[in-house]
């Protein structure tokens, strides 16, 4: 390899190969994991990334305060549990909950360590992929030309496409309007009057940072989130020496939440008391506290972890408006209850398009059917969260009903990658050129998922959340333990598939 080559270039001239056995879309945790796991299993993998660097959601989300809500001990690949020693310190994560720069550096390090650079091409966006039934390949159109692939893996992630609020005036506000996932590095909001729209995971992280800088901060809250103490703290160097122990311990602790979330939401009242005790401690004013007290079961919407969000709201310069955003007017935010506040900048912490992923509008299966259209009548569904009838040789990482509310998505991704690797192995052993799930298998799987979803707090907790799609179908989360998902995706069951042999 030429030494002058930039890390992510596959070939010196930047031309794409005409054919690859395995094509992966997206170089976040899932795409990098796919390159690592499938590459090690002997498959020739090419990862296409539309951005000019790797990292996915951890590259996009650069807003101040961005960090992971899953303990770092668990939020990493099992085959590379800790970052290597950096800047003179020992190996291991610096904090209990790593911040975005450390996670991005970790992913960079994994790519370098495992020699995945030559498998990843950045700056190439997949604009369309169509299954060619005659040639039995995926025909993929990119911003840098076309290519074909035997197997297509979507690793686009659930939290990748920002969902700005559908309100008038975003273009005519006259000042910066930033989505947290499209933060312009170097944005300085110090001394300005700033409005933050949204109090989900991003909002709760960005508010304490902006409260320190902004002259005035207006926080628009549609529904108050449940917030548990985060208890973030630096980790001593050397703890990284027992990463597997730390990982097992953290995994077990996180997994303890699952029975309550999925089977017995009433048990979550214990966690609610814990959350309310922190609210009482940090917000002495009973009026503000009333606005911050959720009216639904903890867990129904994503549970947030923070030690500094409530204290930020108590500051003299911060005002909580308990209302949705109605519109922006030049220099002014207007809330749905009619309240107006003059501000200089608007931060949209409004989350992502989760249940209608944009990639589904770019993939066409047999007979030219668009994945989004195939899903429209039923909501997103995929056999074992991974494969879809009518879309041969397509694998969806972090697919329908694989999301985790209580533990690490990296664990889920690794479960799915074992399944994909087993699928590729089975295809090779049996000389199958193409496989796709039978409609009956996909239907049975989806029915089982939806049946088990009924007892969950997401279905019964009395809230609207991004876990549900426009029709109220809970197509994002896995209704069970991460161990159960891992068992259910351990092996490809050939009875669930139809194969085309050579």
């Amino acid at each position: 390899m030429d030494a002058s080559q930039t890390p992510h270039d596959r070939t010196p001239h930047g031309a794409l190969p005409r054919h690859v056995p395995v094509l992966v879309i997206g170089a976040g945790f899932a795409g990098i994991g796919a390159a690592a796991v499938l590459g090690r299993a002997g498959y020739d993998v090419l990862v296409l990334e539309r951005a000019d660097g790797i990292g996915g959601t951890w590259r996009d989300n650069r807003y101040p305060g961005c960090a992971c809500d899953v303990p770092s001990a668990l939020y990493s690949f099992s085959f590379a549990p800790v970052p290597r020693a950096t800047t003179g310190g020992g190996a291991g994560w610096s904090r209990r909950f790593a911040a975005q720069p450390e996670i991005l550096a970790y992913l960079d390090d994994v790519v370098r360590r495992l020699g995945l650079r030559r498998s990843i091409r950045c700056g190439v966006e997949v604009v369309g992929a169509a299954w060619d039934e005659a040639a039995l390949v995926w025909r993929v159109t990119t911003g840098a030309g076309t290519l074909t692939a035997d197997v297509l893996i979507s690793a686009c992630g659930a939290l990748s496409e920002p969902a700005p609020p559908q309100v008038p005036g975003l273009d005519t506000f006259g000042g910066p309007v930033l989505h947290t996932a499209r933060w312009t590095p170097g944005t300085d909001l110090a001394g300005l009057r700033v409005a933050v729209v949204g109090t989900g995971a991003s909002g709760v992280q960005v508010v304490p940072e902006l409260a320190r800088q902004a002259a005035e901060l207006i926080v628009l809250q549609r529904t108050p989130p449940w917030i548990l103490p985060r208890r973030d703290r630096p980790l001593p160097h050397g703890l990284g020496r027992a990463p597997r122990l730390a990982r097992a311990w953290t995994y077990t602790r996180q997994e303890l939440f699952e029975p309550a979330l999925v089977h017995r939401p009433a048990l979550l009242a214990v966690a609610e008391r814990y959350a309310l005790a922190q609210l009482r401690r940090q917000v002495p004013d009973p009026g503000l506290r009333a606005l911050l007290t959720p009216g639904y079961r903890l867990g129904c919407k994503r549970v947030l972890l923070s030690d500094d969000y409530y204290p930020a709201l108590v500051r003299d310069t911060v005002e909580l408006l308990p209302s949705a955003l109605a519109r922006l007017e030049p220099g002014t935010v207007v809330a749905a209850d009619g309240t107006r506040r003059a501000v200089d900048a608007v931060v949209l912490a409004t989350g992502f398009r989760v249940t209608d992923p944009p990639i589904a509008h770019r993939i066409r299966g047999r007979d030219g059917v668009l994945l989004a259209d195939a899903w429209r009548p039923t909501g997103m569904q995929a056999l074992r969260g991974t494969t879809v009838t009518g879309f041969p040789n397509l694998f969806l990482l972090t697919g329908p009903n694989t999301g985790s509310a209580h533990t690490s998505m990296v664990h889920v991704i690794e479960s799915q990658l074992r399944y994909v690797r087993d699928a590729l192995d089975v295809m090779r052993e049996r000389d199958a050129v193409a496989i796709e799930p039978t409609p009956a298998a996909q239907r049975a799987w989806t029915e089982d998922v939806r049946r088990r979803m009924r007892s969950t707090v997401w279905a019964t907790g009395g809230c609207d959340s991004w876990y549900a799609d426009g029709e109220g179908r809970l197509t994002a989360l896995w209704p069970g333990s991460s161990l159960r998902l891992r068992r259910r995706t351990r092996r490809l069951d050939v009875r669930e598939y139809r194969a085309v042999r050579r």
Partner: protein
Amino acid sequence: MTALPADFRPLTPTRRFTVTSPDGARIAVQVHEPDRDSDAPTAVLVHGWTLSATFWVRVVHRIAGLVRTVVYDQRGHGRSSPVPDGGFTPAALADDLAAVLAATVPDGGAAVVAGHSMGAMAVVAFAGRHADGLHRQVGTVLLASTGVEQLLGRMAVVPSLRRGPAGTPDAGTAGPVRLAVTRQALRDARPLHRMPLPLARATLVHTTMSRTATPQERAYAADLVLACPPRTYEGFARMLADLDLAADLARLDVPARVLVGTADRLTPPWHARRMAASLPHPAGLVQVAGAGHLTPLTAPDAVAAAVLDLARRDREARPDQWVPRTHG
């Protein structure tokens, strides 16, 4: 946690801003504009010791759609700045009110100014110190659950062997022992904060409320008091111990109504009767049966009705309905 009734939920003000008092204290002001009537009269609500603008929430719910409603955090309370050294005085509270009125009430605006407890004392001190502001900006006044003299001596917080008239906490003037115990109890905020929460709540309920208070009212009031910084608590406690605004009361020469709960232990009805008798322009004495000291919280209907009545009367006032104001 017991869910709070809807009228405890804060209303978002139309505007929020800060005014600066002559000694540098910054006062956080909230203005609620009524939806329609841009010509609506203005009501300014002034809260008492250890509370905050939040305290008025139930009254604001009842009047904000009808009159322009101004609430603010007294110095050292809520989101206003801490009290500067030497700033624990009725004169400073009066100056704060003057600054708020200057920012919210146009000349000739004839606002209703309603003070509760130490807030009413601020109104009385304002009358003594800012006669011009009183006549330019204030139309009528409501003095709720307050007194202007002998505060410690008349308090019925520490149980007494003497009994006053049946059903009221009026027990005459305290003897030296009760006076000393009361003074000591007010001087130090630390015991309250060190008590277990249920005991602190019980203490505050005994002091500030009557048996008729609902659990939500009790919890809300106790939380407000416990949110008050100890320095503010103690600084104003010292001021209240030796307060005498009788001379200022004589200068409050706009129509003024007095309101009191008959079970008020902190400022028993004795004060209300005495003030009503010595006001230059008394405009009624309202006694709320069975209510304790925190009338805007536990008797919001009576307080809101009084504010709206004063606003309406002032607006429709014909010269013969009120004794003409003396100017200068």
